[in-house]
C-alpha cells in the first residue's frame, strides 16, 4: 500500500506545483514578451507635491529598450536608450547625449523611486537570483529570491507574490541584507492589453525613514506586444532622431 | 731714601666747561720718599680723596704730572694704568669693599692671582700676612660673617699681600670703633716699618693723624702745610 502511494507521488511530482524557475520564467514572459510597445504615465509623489510624466516605450526582449518623454513640456523630447547593461540619455534642451555612468546608475530615474539601474537590471531576476517557492495558496505563489553569490545586486532578499490566475506579479518586497524592508513594488489592476493580461497600475513605495512620504505610480495606458518594432529605435542615432 | 712720588703742578677740575665746574685741586706740588707714612688731612671737600685717587691712577689729572717710582702715570693708558695698580699700588677703602662672594683668603690672594702667582706661593703669603694682622682664624669666612674691624683687617691684608710699593688708604678708620681703629693703625705702622711700604692715608681722625710721620694739610684744593712729624 505504502509503496503504491509513494510510486504515485513520485509519478505525480513533475506535475505537481510549478517550480519556482518555471513561475519566474512565465512571469517574465508575460511582462515583456518578445517585444512591447507601451504608453505610460508616471506620477512621482514627494513631500513637495506630485509630478506627472507621460512617456512612450519600445522594447525588444530584455536587452533593448527605448523611451521617449512626451509630457511635461519642459522634459518633452528627452529620450533614453538601453542596450544590455548600458544606458544613454538625450536631453534636447542642451542637445547632448549622455552615457549614464556608473555613478548615475543608482540615481533615481527622472526623479522617481525607480533607479536607472532598476530599469536596466530588472531583466536579470532569472540570472542573478536563486528562486525558491515559499508558499502557495488558492490565489498566489509566494517566491523567495535570494541573490546568487556573485550577483551584483544590493538586495539581500526579494519576496515576490505571483497571481496564479495570470502569472503576473502582484507584489515584490525588497529587503536589504540585514532583513530590513526597503521598498515595496505592487502591480495592480490587471486588464487585457493587446494579446495578454497586464498589470496597468504599478506603485513603488519606499519603506525607509529617509524616503518616508514618497511614492511613485506608473499607469500603463496602452500596450502592444510582439509586433515588429523598427530596429532603428535601438541605435544611438535614435536618441536624437526620435526626440522630436 | 729716594724720591718715590713726585707731583708737579697737578690740578683737577671736575665737569670742565659746564655750570657744575669744580676746581678740586690746584697747583699741587708734592714730593714723597719711599717708605713714608703720610697722612693727608683737611676739612671735607678739601680734595683729600681726589688727591689720593689721582695718585692711585683711579682718576686722571686735568693738568700736571704724577710720577711714581720714576714712572709717569699720568701718561699711561687705561690698561697700563690698571696693571700699575695691580702690581704696585694697594687700596684700602673706607667701606672695606671686600668681594662678597669670596672668602677672606680668596679676597686676600686676589691680586696675587691676577699677577699670575701659583697657589703655593699665594698660600704662603696669605698665611704670613694673616698672622701679622691677627686674622688667621678668619680666612675661610665670608665677609658677611665678619665684623667691621675684621673686614677692614682683611682689606688691609688684601692691599698688602701683593707687596705693592704704595698703599693708599682713604679714611680707613672712619667706620671703626676706637679700639679697632687703634689696632688697625698699629698694624699699618708695623707693615710700613717691616715691609717698607709707602703708606698714604687720608683722615680727619686726630688719633690717626697723630700716628703719621708726615702730615700734608689741604684746604680748598691747595697744600697749605707739609711737614714731617717725629
Amino acid at each position, binding site marked *: 500500500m505504502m509503496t503504491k502511494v509513494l510510486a504515485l507521488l513520485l509519478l505525480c511530482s513533475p506535475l505537481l506545483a510549478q517550480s519556482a524557475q518555471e513561475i519566474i520564467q512565465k512571469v517574465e514572459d508575460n511582462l515583456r514578451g518578445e517585444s512591447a510597445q507601451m504608453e505610460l504615465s508616471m506620477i512621482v509623489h514627494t513631500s513637495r507635491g506630485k509630478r506627472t510624466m507621460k512617456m512612450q516605450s519600445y522594447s525588444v526582449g530584455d536587452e533593448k529598450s527605448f523611451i521617449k518623454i512626451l509630457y511635461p513640456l519642459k522634459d518633452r523630447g528627452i529620450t533614453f536608450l538601453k542596450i*544590455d*547593461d*548600458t544606458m544613454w540619455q538625450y536631453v534636447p534642451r542642451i542637445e547632448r547625449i549622455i*552615457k*549614464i*555612468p*556608473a*555613478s548615475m*546608475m*543608482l540615481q533615481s530615474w527622472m526623479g522617481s523611486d525607480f533607479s536607472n539601474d532598476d530599469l536596466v537590471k530588472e531583466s536579470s531576476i532569472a540570472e542573478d537570483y536563486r528562486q525558491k517557492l515559499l508558499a502557495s495558496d488558492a490565489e498566489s505563489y509566494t517566491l523567495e529570491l535570494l*541573490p546568487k*553569490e*556573485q*550577483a*551584483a*545586486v*544590493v*538586495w*539581500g532578499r526579494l519576496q515576490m507574490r505571483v497571481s496564479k490566475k495570470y502569472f503576473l506579479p502582484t507584489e515584490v518586497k*525588497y*529587503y*536589504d*541584507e*540585514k532583513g*530590513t524592508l*526597503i521598498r515595496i513594488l505592487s502591480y495592480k489592476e490587471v486588464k487585457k492589453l493587446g494579446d495578454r493580461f497586464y498589470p496597468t497600475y504599478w506603485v513603488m513605495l519606499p519603506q*525607509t525613514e*529617509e524616503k518616508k512620504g514618497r511614492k511613485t505610480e506608473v499607469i500603463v495606458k496602452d500596450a502592444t506586444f510582439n509586433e515588429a518594432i523598427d530596429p532603428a529605435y535601438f541605435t544611438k542615432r535614435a536618441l536624437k532622431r526620435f526626440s522630436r | 731714601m729716594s724720591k718715590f712720588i713726585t707731583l708737579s703742578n697737578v690740578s683737577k677740575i671736575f665737569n670742565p666747561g659746564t655750570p657744575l665746574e669744580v676746581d678740586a685741586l690746584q697747583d699741587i706740588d708734592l714730593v714723597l720718599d719711599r717708605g713714608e707714612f703720610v697722612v693727608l688731612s683737611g676739612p671735607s671737600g678739601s680734595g683729600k*680723596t681726589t688727591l689720593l*685717587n689721582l695718585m*692711585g691712577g*683711579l*682718576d686722571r689729572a686735568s693738568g700736571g704730572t704724577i710720577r711714581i717710582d720714576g714712572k709717569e702715570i699720568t701718561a699711561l693708558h*687705561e*690698561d697700563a694704568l*690698571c*696693571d*700699575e*695698580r*695691580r*702690581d704696585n*699700588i*694697594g*687700596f684700602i*677703602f*673706607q*667701606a672695606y*669693599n671686600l*668681594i*662678597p*662672594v*669670596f672668602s677672606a683668603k*680668596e679676597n686676600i690672594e*686676589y*691680586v696675587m*692671582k*691676577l699677577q*699670575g702667582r701659583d697657589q703655593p706661593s699665594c698660600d704662603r703669603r696669605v698665611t704670613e700676612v694673616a698672622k701679622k694682622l691677627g686674622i688667621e682664624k678668619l680666612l675661610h669666612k665670608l665677609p658677611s660673617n665678619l665684623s667691621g674691624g675684621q673686614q677692614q683687617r682683611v682689606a688691609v691684608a*688684601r*692691599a698688602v699681600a701683593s707687596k705693592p710699593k704704595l698703599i693708599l688708604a682713604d679714611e680707613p678708620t672712619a667706620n671703626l670703633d676706637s679700639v679697632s681703629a687703634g689696632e688697625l693703625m698699629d698694624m699699618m705702622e708695623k707693615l710700613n716699618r717691616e715691609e717698607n711700604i709707602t703708606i698714604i692715608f687720608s683722615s680727619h681722625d686726630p688719633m690717626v693723624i697723630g700716628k703719621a710721620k708726615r702730615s700734608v694739610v689741604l684746604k680748598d684744593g691747595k697744600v697749605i702745610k707739609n711737614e714731617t712729624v717725629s
Partner: protein
Amino acid sequence: MFKLIFKSALASLLRRKLRTALVITMIAMSLWGLLLMQGIYDGMVQQMIGNAVRSDSSQLSIFAKGFRAQPDVKLQLQKQQEIKNFLAHHPNVKSHISRILSRGLIATARYNRNALIYGIDPGAEITHASLNRYVVEGAFDFGDKRRGALLGYKLAKKLKISPGDKVVLSAQSMDQQIASVALRVKGVLRTNNLSIDESGVFMHKQRAKAMLGLENAHQIAVMVHDYSRVATLQTQLRTKFPGVKSYTWEQLYPALQQSRELMELFNSISYAIVFCTAAIGIFGVVLVSVLERLREFGVLRAIGTRFGVIAAMIFAESFLIGVAGFAAGSLLGGATLEYFAAFGLDLRSFSDALGEFGIDAVTYAMIKPEYFTTSFVAVFAATFLSVLIPLRILRKSKPVEVINE
C-alpha cells in the same frame, strides 16, 4: 687667570643661588618647550607624509602618460612586466607593487556613494608598505574566493556598514560597459589619508582585472632605499619607458608638501618667539645682576683688574648659566621626546578633529640631533647677547664714581 675667572664666575653664581636657579630654569623650560614642539611637529608631519606615502603613492608612483590628468580605465601601463623587471634589478629600489585604479560607485540597499577603487595584491601590500597596519575593524583579507572588500572608515560610516555586509561596486570597464560586482566587506581601514578614508574601496587585483577587463595595472608604487637619489631613478625611467610618467610623493601631494613647509614656518616662528622670550628674561636678570654689582666691579678694577678680565668674568657667568640651562633643558626635553617617540602623544580625544586634517590621533615624536645643535646655538646666542648691554653700561661706569658711597 682662566681659573680665577671661572672661580669668580662660579662663586658669584652660587652666592645668588635663587637668581641663578631662576635663570637656569627659564632656559631649561624654554628649551624643553622648544624641543618638544620641534619633535612633535616633525613627528606629525612625518606621519602625515608617511600615511600618504604608505597608503597611496609610496615614494614614487608610475602611471601611463596622461593618466593623472584624466584617469581613464583604458590608460593601463604598457610594458608593465618590463618596468617591473627593471625595478626589481635596480639597486635603489626597495620594493614595488602594482595596482588597478578606477572611479566607480559603491552601493548598498539604502545608500550609494562615489568610490575610488583600488585593485591590490594584499600579500604584496603588506610587505611593501604595511597597508594592513591601518585596519581598524575586521581584517586585511579578501577571503579565499577573493570577493572581499576593504573600505575607508568614513565611507563605511556613511554607508552604515561593517565587516560582513554586502556591497555592490560598479565601474566602467574597458569595453565601455558598466561592470558591477558584489563584494563582502572584510575590513575597514583608517589611513588618515583623507581621500582613501572618504571614498576608498580596496578589492583584490585579480577580481578588479576580471571586472574591468584589464590586462595591466594603472599604477606601480615604488619604495626606495635612498630617497635623495630618487631623481636619478626618475630620469632612468623617463629614458627607458617614454610611455609612462613617474611622480614623487611631493609631486603627487603638493598640498602635503605645502603643509610641511607651513609647519616648518610655524615651527620657526614659535621657535623665534620662545627664544626671544627666554633671551629677554635672561637679559633682565643679567642686567640687574651686573647693575647691582657695579660697585663690586669698580673695586675690582681699582685694585688692578683689567676691564677685559671683568668682561670675561661676566661672560663666564653667562656661559655657565647657559651650559647648565642647556644641560637641564636637553635632558628634560630629550627624555620627554624619547617618551613620546616610544609611546606617542595620545590625542585620541581630538581624533575626529585631527582626522579632518589627516593627522593621526597618536603622534610619535621625532628626535634629530639638529634639535640639540640648533638649541645649543640658540642658548648661547641668548646668553651672549644678554650680556652685551650690561657690559656696555659697565664700561661706561667709572670705578671712582661707583666706589665712593
